[in-house]
């Protein structure tokens, strides 16, 4: 089957195509060069339409234990947004903690074709994959969480060499079927189990004598050496703590050029100025990001609405539980692996802190120069549900709209922010970088996020409108692997995406010490812990796509 997309205005940053009228050809799920003599089976006239690759959310909590805890915690939230069954679609629920099926449909309806779960605990990875296995249409993948696991901290305390740690990291990536590695509050989740309540960058986990700085350098080195495409994905120390911008700046300095991705950096960009002892550190953070090309970030923008925060960082979630709205929350310690904390939040525009958080996120977006190193996220659902993305895009692309919104928030917060003076408006090209080309590049997805020959035909077509929210809310067409899945913002076909993974090489000798550790301390046998390919494939719709490691790493 040969499909021709005719005359669309194409934004394909990987190939530096910035709004040029082009024809695209799709065969067998792939974008191909113009065929010389083949018959076109289907043609879409896209004249006047905007064409981009399918969008990729590189940080969204869509699967795994804490997401399901969030669902169980909030029946009233689901009741406010029931999703009806149709001939084609399964029923479910939306809002802050949507059902898996509804998650897939709503992402696709906004033109997204992939989403990555950033906090996959090794012991809970099986669940994350099972939940993601029930998310239709989207491709997915996960970053496996390390850094508070006792096995790593024991290795570090015993001063094991970096090579052994690399082997363990690679083994964990394999066992958990991951595409990247994340660290959350490095060492902090572990320290909380020993009743430590804070852990700054150079504070030591009392039991192990290891600091977050040590852990970050150790894991970032492992990730780089192994050739994992995605830099170590870091949820830093001191999330939400006023003054944490200094921790973030020190974290950047500590890396000394090692690649690092600082996630939901908005929550880590706070100063202590002003009457409320809470101020924006966005300018300093953005400057540091601009200056250090080894650093990439996603923002974790907040929006003024009900949501739920679900994080591996139970040390900080416990500290923040007083803000729970409604007043209920869950914290867990998990299997000597990590933990989680789930706290519902209602961010309010008339609350000084919330209002300034909103402004800080936008300041960061607008002050960071390089769209290839900043990604559009709300840290779904922590800052806001992913369904807020079209609104967020409008805030970035439309300064008069942004100023109108700024006029509605807590006036002291508005005054404390530099947002009013920022003239920048994102272009469609920059949006395409941030949500497509850049996201694919930083994950090492060579055939996604672009429209060149050989790319998977994940393609989104919009009608350009002045109101960018309306434009991005409802694409005209979405193709997933060459199949039309959305027309006029509605699902017309349900397909099932693949799971993206990476498999760095390691010395299998590491399994000897792991088997002993599992036998002595864990509650599961090593062999039962590892997730086998057939667990993802056996339902007949799941699949795995293995990406090569970065050149420079092992083959």
């Amino acid at each position, binding site marked *: 089957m040969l499909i021709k997309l005719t005359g669309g205005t194409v934004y394909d940053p990987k190939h530096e195509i910035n709004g040029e009228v082009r024809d695209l050809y799709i065969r067998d799920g792939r974008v191909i060069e113009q065929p010389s003599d083949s018959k076109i089976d289907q043609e879409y006239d896209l004249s006047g339409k905007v064409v981009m690759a399918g969008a990729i959310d590189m940080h969204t909590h869509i699967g795994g234990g804490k997401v399901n805890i969030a669902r169980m915690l909030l*029946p009233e939230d689901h009741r406010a947004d029931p999703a009806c069954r149709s001939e084609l679609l*399964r*029923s*479910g629920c939306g809002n802050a903690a*949507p059902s898996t*099926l509804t998650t897939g449909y709503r992402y696709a309806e906004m033109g997204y074709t992939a989403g990555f779960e950033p906090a996959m605990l090794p012991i809970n990875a*099986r669940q994350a994959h099972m939940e993601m296995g029930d998310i239709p249409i989207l491709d997915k993948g996960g970053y496996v969480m390390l850094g508070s696991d006792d096995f790593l901290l024991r290795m570090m305390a015993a001063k094991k060499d970096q090579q052994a740690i690399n082997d363990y990291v690679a083994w964990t990536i394999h066992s958990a079927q991951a595409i990247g590695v994340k660290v959350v509050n490095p060492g902090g989740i572990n320290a909380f189990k020993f*009743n430590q309540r804070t852990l700054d960058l150079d504070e030591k986990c009392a039991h192990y004598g290891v600091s977050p700085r040590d852990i970050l350098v150790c894991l970032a080195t492992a990730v780089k050496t192994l050739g994992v495409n995605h830099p170590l994905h870091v949820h830093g120390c001191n999330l939400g703590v006023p003054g944490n911008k200094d921790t973030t700046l020190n974290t950047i300095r500590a890396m000394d050029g090692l690649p690092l991705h600082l996630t939901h950096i908005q929550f880590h960009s706070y100063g202590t100025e002003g009457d409320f002892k809470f101020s924006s550190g966005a300018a300093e953070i953005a400057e540091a990001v601009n200056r250090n090309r080894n650093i990439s970030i996603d923002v974790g923008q907040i929006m003024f609405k009900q949501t739920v925060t679900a994080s591996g960082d139970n040390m900080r979630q416990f500290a923040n539980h007083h803000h729970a709205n409604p007043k209920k*929350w869950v914290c867990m310690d998990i299997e000597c692996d990590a933990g989680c904390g789930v706290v519902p939040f209602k961010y309010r525009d008339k609350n000084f802190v919330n209002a300034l958080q909103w402004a800080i996120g936008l300041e960061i977006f607008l002050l960071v120069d390089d769209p290839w190193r900043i990604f559009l996220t709300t840290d779904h659902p922590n800052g806001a549900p992913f369904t807020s993305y079209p609104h967020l895009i409008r805030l970035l692309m439309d300064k008069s709209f942004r100023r109108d919104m700024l006029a509605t928030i807590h006036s002291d917060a508005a005054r404390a922010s530099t947002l009013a003076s920022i003239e920048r408006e994102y272009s469609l090209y920059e949006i395409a970088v941030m949500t497509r080309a850049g996201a694919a590049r930083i994950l090492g997805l060579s055939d996604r996020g672009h429209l060149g020959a050989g790319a998977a035909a994940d393609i989104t077509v919009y009608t350009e409108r002045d109101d960018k929210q309306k434009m991005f809310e409802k694409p005209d067409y979405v193709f997933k692997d060459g199949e039309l899945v959305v027309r006029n913002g509605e699902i017309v076909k349900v397909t099932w995406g693949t799971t993206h993974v990476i498999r760095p090489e390691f010395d299998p000798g590491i399994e000897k010490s792991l088997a002993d550790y599992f036998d002595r301390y864990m509650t599961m046998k090593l062999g039962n812990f590892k997730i086998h390919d057939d667990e993802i494939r056996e339902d007949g719709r799941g699949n795995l796509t293995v990406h090569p490691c970065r050149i420079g790493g092992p083959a």
Partner: protein
Amino acid sequence: MMTETNEAGIFKQVPSPFCGVGTDDLTIKVEDTAIRVIENGCAVNTPAFEQPLGDLKPRVVGKKVELKDAVDKAAEILRSASLPLFGGLATDVNGMRAALSLADKTGAIIDNMNFGAALRNFLVVHDSGWVNTTLAEVKNRADLLLVVGCDLESLFPRFFERYIWTADSMFLDDTGKRQVIYLGKIPSGFASKSPSGKAAKVLACPDADLPQVVAVLRALVKGAPLNITEVGGISITELQRLASQLKKAAYGVVTWAVSALDFPQAELTVQTLCEMIKELNRSTRCSGLPLGGKEGDQTSFQVSGWQTGYPSRVDFSAGFPEYDPYLNSVESRLADGSGDALLWISTFNVEKTPPKTPVRKIVVGRSGMQFDREPEVFIPVGTPGIDHCGHAYRTDNVVAVRLRKLRESALPSCSEVLSAIEQTL
């Protein structure tokens, strides 16, 4: 995927879907279709694994038929029902996925067989939340275990051996020094006795007094002055000592099993415990450990949770999932006459048969199931973890175990049967 096995048909490190605590060190011998647990069995797992294979053929009104005919009949029953009820829901992840898909399509109500008890926990989660832990944390960190209102060893025979009196623990020098305290029910045996012979401390009281006793304990933890000398037959001095122990423990764990808290408004007692645990965490660490996970209940709640947002008792008849933890029970929908067909799913335990009801019945059950009254359709299916691979959740909610196929029985899986019914509709 078959577990690696030697020529004698010996399977090692076999995970169990039956015990709820994720035992995965069983050694099992399979001869033809007969299964014997030869190492690490227990009173729960051994009989569940060794249950002989029964009927392989489905039946319609008691007559053996081909699978296709049974599936057609089941589809006919569901098609003609105005409100089908799906009860039991004791199956693996794929079985539950298929059940939810079929329920969505037929506008059914789903209700897990253990949800009445589990609701005592879920109401607490919906209302105030909790601070919990998992089994490996218990094994490596717990210096105090408070068992509230249950006889742990009869429900979970290997709990103490696997998680408390362990040879190794990362953070305790001597696991034998862990303090074990029972509040409420008295232990039926000696599993809670430490290897050096130290018996668990028991503060016994009748179940009916547990709400008061737990409320008093919480008050003492908070330091509230109390003008009484005893509650439920337990002296305040003893409870005060317990409160101090909880505060002094580095990593206390409070465990309960909702199936054993069988008294009115037991959720309030669970909530009091959970709020007490939260309060203890202001100064030290303390966590809850709710125990359950049998008959695949945790599996069913998890899958329902991610596909619908709700753990169970979901009504699909309006075209979207509606949760009502009371009205949507199979029991009440049979009693009020609104449910007019019952699909009963029970793949782990032949004893867990459907409730007595005059409505048309389909049973998708473990081979070997016997009935007082033959259901209109009975489709024997394989047991997850014996006849086919699958996934089952442990009680601590985080860990799903990969179940293995141990024998060739020719039985279809629950998920295959339910999908076939959905295809036929």
